[in-house]
């Protein structure tokens, strides 16, 4: 089988695989928000940027501080590529741990948290939130922007099952893609741009199709929450119970369910992590 190198490790792939998919199949998780194995590629969160060592560097030179010369000197910089979009080719050499990549991960993560509200204590996602996980893994610094964050609609009722919080949203568009690709119902879309970005309903519609809870399931952060489960339980406290008990139902091995001593609160399908 054809292989490529990821951080010094040989990874097999089939033709047409993207870097992130080939790595995911091997159980290696390249950080990402917008990519989902069951959906099309959006490449808009920029969290999965990797350095392809065999590719050419950026055309434009950059200035780098040289302490020995005590001056800025021209330097080249590798062009980082989104791992979710680049198809793998034989013998490709990829790094997810180089300084440039680390810096990019850190910057993207800091950017996503720029206007994020201080919601962890009341957020249903806290404990299984990618913003939290990646902060610890890739950023772990304090806030540098101390101005008022941008405010956007909170607690918007999307339909009978889903509530949307625009301030928590990282605009990965997974929910839009679920509606488009899985259901074929273009009920969600994005409006405005930049930090005014917001997911909105089609005029006169509600998010009321049969797979509406899938949008909550694929949401990597706490932007979409299930109305049934809102404010009922803290996920992270129940992690042991979740692992110990497995609930079998019509969905086949639905593994994650949030519970307190009184029983299950919600049942959800398998996550996107492999195995």
């Amino acid at each position, binding site marked *: 089988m054809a292989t490529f190198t990821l951080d010094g490790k040989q990874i097999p792939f089939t033709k047409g695989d993207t870097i992130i998919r080939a790595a995911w199949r091997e159980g290696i998780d390249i950080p990402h928000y917008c990519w989902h194995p069951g959906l099309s590629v959006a490449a808009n969160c920029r969290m999965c940027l990797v350095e392809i060592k065999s590719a050419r560097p950026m055309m434009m030179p950059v200035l780098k501080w040289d302490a020995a010369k005590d001056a800025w000197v021209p330097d080249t910089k590798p062009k980082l590529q989104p791992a979710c979009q680049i198809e793998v080719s034989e013998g490709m050499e990829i790094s997810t741990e180089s300084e440039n990549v680390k810096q990019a991960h850190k910057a993207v993560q800091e950017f996503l*948290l720029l206007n*994020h*509200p*201080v*919601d*962890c*204590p009341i957020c249903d996602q*806290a*404990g299984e939130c990618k*913003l*939290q996980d990646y*902060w*610890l893994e890739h*950023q*772990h*610094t*304090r*806030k540098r922007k*101390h101005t008022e964050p941008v405010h956007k609609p909170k607690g918007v009722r999307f339909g009978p099952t889903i509530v949307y919080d625009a301030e928590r949203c990282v605009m990965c568009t997974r929910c839009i893609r679920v509606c488009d690709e899985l259901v074929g119902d273009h009920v969600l879309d994005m409006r405005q741009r930049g930090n005014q970005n917001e997911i909105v309903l089609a005029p006169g519609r509600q998010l009321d199709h049969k797979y509406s809870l899938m949008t909550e399931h694929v949401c990597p952060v706490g932007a979409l929450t299930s109305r049934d489960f809102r404010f009922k339980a803290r996920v*992270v*406290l129940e992690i042991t119970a979740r692992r110990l008990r497995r609930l079998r139902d019509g969905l086949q091995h639905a593994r994650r369910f949030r519970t307190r001593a009184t029983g299950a609160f919600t049942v959800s399908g398998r996550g996107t992590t492999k195995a």
Partner: protein
Amino acid sequence: MEPIEHEFDEDHALELPAEPMRLNMGPSHPAMHGTIRMVLDLEGETVENVDVQPGYLHRGFEKSCERGTWSQVFPYADRLNYVSPMLNNVGFALAVEKLCGITVPERAAYYRVILGEIARICDHFTCNGAGAMELGAFTPFLWFLKVREWCWDVLERETGARMTHSFGRIGGMAKPPTENFKRDVTELIPEVLKSVNEAETLLLRNRIFLDRMQGVGSLSQERALALGVTGPMLRSTGVDYDVRKAHPYSLYDRFDFEVPIGHDGDNYDRFLVRMEEMRQSCSIILQAIKQMPDDGPVNSPDLRYILPEKNEVYTTIEATIAHFKLVMEGIKPPKGQVYSFTEGGNGELGFFIVSDGSGTPYRVRVRPPCWFNLQACREMLIGDMISDIIPTFGSVNMIGGECDR
């Protein structure tokens, strides 16, 4: 009550061999700390053989560490050598910091040194004072404990607890020094030195004390090294091994101090080495007080290991996430293993820790100095009189909490 009348059958009297006599000492004997049992074979009053049996105190310290977070190990570490808990706190913190690759700010390092040395003084006070008391000299014991109480007052003002402070943190200390810290310590040290001198004048010209200590419980240098003995007990045999000098950790390379050594390795030498170490600790403390900066942080700025300030937690998302992660999942040192050792109250206190990258220690192995010192006990006791067991075992300063295996 009427006397019980025994009718002895002279012809069939059961003959028990009188010599050697097998005698159990402990674990309920006060000198055995309730945690050690000695099975003695006595020839008259001379100890022919002795089997030292620890294990009457078992809390499963190392196993307990494997189910909480890394930060939750501190209370367990406190209870290893509960006479100098601060040294254990710092020892464990240094081990995890070595694994994480972080260093604490200078102010915290000085703070640790000063509190640690006060703890060492308390440890030696307790050992030497109790040793004298066990020989009938109650006055020095009470004088020592009086000053130890003043030491604990300082520790209490700083940490909130006289013993078992749980004051260390990975990447710093729980709180910065109090406003009057330097004044309190500066006032304490002369009292310590005074008490050390007083006790020496009381004891070192006392015939009974000298007879019970000199030449009793001797340990040769070779055997001490072979058995892994460290601390004052090793130094009393003439080996100048002190982790603070041999492998300076924290700030110990900045202080000017001597490593006192003895030459006979008997009770008397152990007593004197501890006395002199208290003086050296005082000298270290005074130097540290002079060098310690008056302000500055006592915690590493790295949010992966140290909780952020509350006002930050309430206002910024980054600090909220840090708080959430640290509280719910605990700190996560990188995968790997590390051995880190410090000079505890009784010798080399080592922590071998293994991390699998999760919020819970994979393994915490302690090298408790008392465990190794206790090994030497058997050889030291054989050949001496039964009454010599008390001062000898006392000067080994076995702390049951550390011998919890």
